[in-house]
Structures are given as structure tokens and as C-alpha cells.
């Protein structure tokens, strides 16, 4: 049994970033991301991490600064939440189109208004199509591990795309959890020093960020889409290599009790943990129910997802954001579209829940299940609205 320590997940995140030996950190504090940047600035102040910690005046400048530092070949890091992501979102898109392998932790929090510092996924869903590789992790160990995995993926010359690690604000970021802090010697074997493919340097002048006339814009977008789709096998390999070193293997989708299930819950992030408890209780009652955690959101793992859910009667998608006036929650809408061409496609129920920090309990998941299989629940709706 490897040695495990109890640590607040935010501090574990900072510890992992330190062990990635990043060169530049630019971040602006925002709840609930603050503990990560506080701890990183301590590491730099105490000489434990030789990096530039740049306390920028906004998230917009945090992302812009990271573009500058990545462009000259520095392994860079930022993290944010909610409004911070919304403010920097203009530049988030450009980071991907410049093919800069930045890693960002997004500690998920709802978007205003009304203002709420608590957790849901309305921040990340607003930048769904920003062109980044987007991962959802669901416990402290996964947060820690994915710092290394993400740089490994991003800096792979077959990828060269930024990676966003999503994890839930407060309900994960502020939890104390037991975890194994992988030793630097192991990490050294896994994550080589950053070897940038293109850098800004006077010895070999390059132009980055040229603009595109209509004659080339479509081709630039096609190339970007291809790059994101083609990152998939590289992501699988990065997970495989990590598993070989640490014994912890990760998959784009992860099923529990899905083999014989008639109904499957689909969760992103830490809600999978509680939903798993509900599934266990329902199984004990004799229900044929399972759980699917979607760890990889972009590129969307179409085949791996379809393999698990084809032939299943119902999917209960736990959405954590509202698509106002749209076709259900953003995840459910996407899953319906992804499954549409399957001959044997499941019914998809969209339960928008856990907005702005509202707890979703085991009983709530059981109520969703009952509602879906009895046909009493609406196909799309916001769950648990109080009268």
C-alpha cells in the first residue's frame, strides 16, 4: 500500500503544479480557486518553486500573460473560476488557436447573476467550444494526478493544445481527502522537461497570431478541429503511461454496473461520487441501474460513450447548468445529438440540478430514477425547484 496523506484538495492541486516544475504562474484570485494561488505564491516566496509568480490585475491578463510566456517556451499555469473564466474567455479561445500547451485548473463555480460563489458547471459550459482539451475529475487524487497528465498531453508534439482540468468548487476544492502524492522521481520519469516546438526568439524570428482572410479562415478552423479530435489517442496513452507508473488508470468514460443496466446515470465531476451511492442503494433494491462518469468532455469520446450506452433504455443526464430556452441541459443536449444515429438509442432525460451549490442527495438521485422509469418526470427540466 502506497503512503497516503490527508490534504485539502486545493493544496494538493498546488503541490502537483509545483512538482510539474512550472516556469510561470499568472493568476487572479477568485473564490473558490484562491487556495491554489495562495499556496503557489508561498512556494515561490519560500524558494520551493523556481518560477515567476505574476499577480496580474485580472483574469483577462492572466490568460494573456500565459500566452506570452508559453510563446517563448515557458511551462505556464493559471487557474480560475466562474466570472474569472468569463472575463478571460476571449483569450481562452485564442490560446487554443495559437496551439499553446497551457494547463488551467477551472474550479467550477456558477456564473452570475444572481451572484453565487457556489458550485455548478455554468462557467465551463459557457466556453464549451473554446477548442481546449477539457477534463472533469471527481476527487482529490484525480486532481493531483491530472496536473502531470495534462502537461504530458498538452506538450505532446502530436497534440500541442491547452488543457482545462475541471473540478467542483468547495464540494471538492475545499475537501480534505486522503491521497498519494507521487514522488518527484516518478514524475520525472513521466513528464519530461517542456520541449516547445515553436518559440518566439530573435535567433529564429516567427510571426504568431497572423490574421486570416476568408480564403484561409475555414482551413485554419478545420485544422484546429482535426488537432483536437486527433489528440484522443494521445490522451489515452498519457493515461495508460500514468497507470503503468502509479497503478491508477483513467478512462474517458468510466462505467459502474453498466453491463446489465437498463438505466444509466451520466455524471461529470464530483457528482459522480454521490450518484454512485444512489446507484448502490438502487441496486440493493434490485433495480438494473448503472453510472457513467464522463471524464473527457473535449474531445468528446463518441465511440467509448456509445459502447457503454447502446441498447440501454434510459439515460439520466445530470446537468449542472441551464441552457435557457434550449434543448435540455448542455450535456444532455450534446448526448442526444451524439447518440442520434445509433439504431438502438436510449431515451435521454435531462435533470438540471445542483445549481449554485444546491446539494443533490442520494434521495434526490433515487427520485430522479423513479421519475424517469415511470415516465412521470418531464424529459427536460430543472430538478428540485422549491415551491
Amino acid at each position, binding site marked *: 500500500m502506497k503512503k497516503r496523506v490527508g490534504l485539502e484538495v486545493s493544496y494538493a492541486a498546488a503541490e502537483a503544479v509545483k512538482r510539474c516544475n512550472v516556469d*510561470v504562474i499568472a493568476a487572479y484570485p477568485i473564490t473558490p480557486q484562491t487556495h491554489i494561488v495562495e499556496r503557489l505564491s508561498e512556494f515561490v516566496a519560500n524558494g520551493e518553486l523556481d518560477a515567476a509568480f*505574476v499577480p*496580474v490585475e485580472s483574469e483577462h*491578463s492572466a490568460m494573456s500573460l500565459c500566452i506570452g510566456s508559453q510563446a517563448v517556451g515557458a511551462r505556464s499555469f493559471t487557474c480560475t473560476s466562474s466570472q474569472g473564466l468569463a472575463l478571460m474567455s476571449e483569450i481562452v479561445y485564442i490560446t487554443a488557436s495559437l496551439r499553446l500547451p497551457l494547463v488551467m485548473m477551472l474550479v467550477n463555480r456558477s456564473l452570475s447573476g444572481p451572484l453565487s460563489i457556489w458550485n455548478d458547471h455554468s462557467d465551463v459550459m459557457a466556453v464549451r467550444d473554446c477548442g481546449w482539451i477539457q477534463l472533469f475529475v471527481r476527487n482529490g487524487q484525480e486532481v493531483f494526478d491530472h496536473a502531470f497528465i495534462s502537461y504530458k498531453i498538452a506538450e505532446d508534439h502530436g497534440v500541442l493544445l491547452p488543457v482545462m482540468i475541471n473540478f467542483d468548487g468547495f464540494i471538492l476544492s475545499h475537501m480534505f481527502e486522503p491521497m498519494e502524492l507521487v514522488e518527484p522521481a516518478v514524475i520525472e520519469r513521466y513528464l519530461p522537461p517542456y520541449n516547445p516546438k515553436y518559440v518566439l*526568439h530573435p535567433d*529564429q524570428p516567427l*510571426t504568431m497570431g*497572423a490574421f486570416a482572410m476568408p480564403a484561409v479562415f475555414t482551413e485554419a478552423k478545420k485544422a484546429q478541429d482535426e488537432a483536437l479530435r486527433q489528440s484522443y489517442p494521445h490522451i489515452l496513452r498519457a493515461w495508460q503511461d500514468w497507470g503503468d507508473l502509479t497503478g491508477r488508470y483513467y478512462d474517458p468514460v468510466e462505467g459502474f454496473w453498466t453491463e446489465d443496466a437498463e438505466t444509466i446515470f451520466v455524471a461529470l465531476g464530483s457528482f459522480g461520487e454521490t450518484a454512485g451511492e444512489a446507484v448502490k442503494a438502487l441496486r440493493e433494491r434490485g433495480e438494473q441501474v448503472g453510472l457513467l462518469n464522463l471524464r473527457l468532455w473535449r474531445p468528446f469520446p463518441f465511440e467509448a460513450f456509445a459502447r457503454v450506452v447502446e441498447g440501454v433504455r434510459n439515460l439520466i443526464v445530470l446537468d449542472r447548468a441551464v441552457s435557457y430556452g434550449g434543448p435540455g441541459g448542455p450535456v444532455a443536449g450534446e448526448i442526444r445529438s451524439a447518440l442520434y444515429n445509433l439504431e438502438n438509442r436510449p431515451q435521454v432525460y435531462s435533470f438540471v440540478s445542483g445549481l449554485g451549490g444546491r446539494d443533490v442527495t442520494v434521495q434526490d438521485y433515487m427520485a430522479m430514477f423513479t421519475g424517469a422509469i415511470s415516465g412521470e418526470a418531464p424529459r427536460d427540466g430543472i430538478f428540485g425547484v422549491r415551491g
Partner: protein
Amino acid sequence: MNDAGLYAVKSLPKKEYLAPGHRSCPGCGEVLAVRLVHKALGRNTITASATGCMEIVSSPFPLTSWEIPWIHVAFENAAAVAGGIEAALKVLQRKGKIAPKEINVVAMAGDGGTADIGLQALSGALERGHDFLYVCYDNEAYMNTGVQRSSATPFGAHTTTSPAGTAVPGQITWKKNMPEIVAAHKIPYVATATPSYPLDLINKIEKGAAAEGPAYVHILSVCPTGWGIGSAETIKIGRLAVQTGFFPLYEVEDGAYKITVDCAELLPLERYLQPQGRFRHLSEELIAQLRRRVFEQWAELKRRAALSASAAR
């Protein structure tokens, strides 16, 4: 006017870092300024550019006019991008990941990208003390999108969003004083320049690049298209801006003010205003208001320069 300066230009390096074939308008004062700035900086330079005229004329993929490493990201963040370049070069050299080398880190933006949408990023980068040079190419409106007003548009000027109408006589606000706002950050070097005085401009860029910490050079960039003048008038109009006191050339070095192109007597303001289409509608009364402001500004600058000179003694 120092006429020797006119001929001294011939002694400048021939090497261009902004190659010909770019798409600027004929007589563009800004592109001339960009060329002079980069001649002064030399090849060991990395430039981060804001969105704007200079970005559009120089980088239509797959072409580029840039012979130095150059990056464009967005409109309002040139200072932040340059800050990232500077921070990274420093740490990469310290960690031995790249060879030590003196590299000038430069941010460039127009007046919109500096005084309006980019002001926050600029202020943040100055306050944090990045060792970089910020160059504002001020053509006094959003020229790239079709001559809309900015906060650097002078009082009275006609633009497409401050049109000279029957009820409102063009821009009714006073030009934001960017060099003073920057100087309030107490950075080592702040200056104004214009390509009509090329040696003065080059000296200032060299000083700014050599300064330890942030430096800022605000360059009046005459825009024939937006100002309503002939494309052969650029240099002359730039000179008149200085000689009438409309755009004084000065520098603030470690807090000390110095007028670098002094005028024993300011030329009549009309000589600057009259040739420009953007001011053609101005009434005597509006011109009088402008004149008052120019005199006040000039007197204040003279006072500060005199104070600095006496403090130095």
C-alpha cells in the same frame, strides 16, 4: 528646428525589420514610426502587438512583414502578453533553459488599445514593473475600423462617432493625457515622440529600451486617411503639431521633465488645424478654447521642466 536632424536620418541603419509590401495607406505616419522604432531596437527584440492598423497591415496569413519575432493576440492585452514574454525570458534564463541574451521586450498598440480598452492591462504591467517598452502609436481615433473617436481624439475633431453636426461640433471631450497617466506610475522612463522628428524618436526608444523596468513612449502618428490631409503632408503636419504646442515633445526620466524639442515661440494653432479636414468645421470660439488649453498645457510643461532643471542643479 534643428535642420541637421533632417540629414542625420541618412546615417540610420538601412536594415528594416518591418519589410516593405505591407498594406498601410499611403503617407501613413504610424508605419513610419513602427519602422523607426524597430530600427532603434535592432534585431534582438520580441514585439507583442495589439489588434489594430499595424497588425492588419502587416500580418495577413500566410504573409508577414515582420523580420523580428512578433505576436498578436487581441486588442486590449498587448501589455499583458509582453509581461508574459518578459517574465518567461527572465525565469528561463535564470533556470538555464535558454542562453543568456539581452532581448528587448516591446508591446505596441494604438491609442484605442492603450488609452481605452487596454488601459487596465497597461496599468497592471507598469505597476508590476515588467522590464519592457510600451509604444503607443497614437493616431487619435479608431482608424482601423473607420475613424471612430477614442479618448485620445482631440477636442473638436470630427470622427465618424463624433461627427461635426449642427447641434454637436465633433468631439466634445478633451484628449486623455496618457503620458501623464503613465508617469503617475513612477516608471523610469516616459516620453512623447513623432516620426517628424526621427532622431528625437530614436533617442527616446533607445533610452526606453535601456531603462531598467517599464518604459513608455507615446508617438503621435499622423493619419492622412483619418485626419483629412494629403498623403504627402504627414511629416509637415507632425512638425506643426509640435511647433504649435499641440503635441509637445518631452520626456520624464526618473521623474525629471525635459522638453526635448523646445519652441521659443509657439506657431499659431491655426497653422496646424486649418489643413486638416477633421478640424475644418471649427468656429473661432472653439479654436479659442483649444488654444487656451494648448497654452495651459505648454506652460505647465515648461514649469515642470524648469523645476526639474533647477532640482538637477
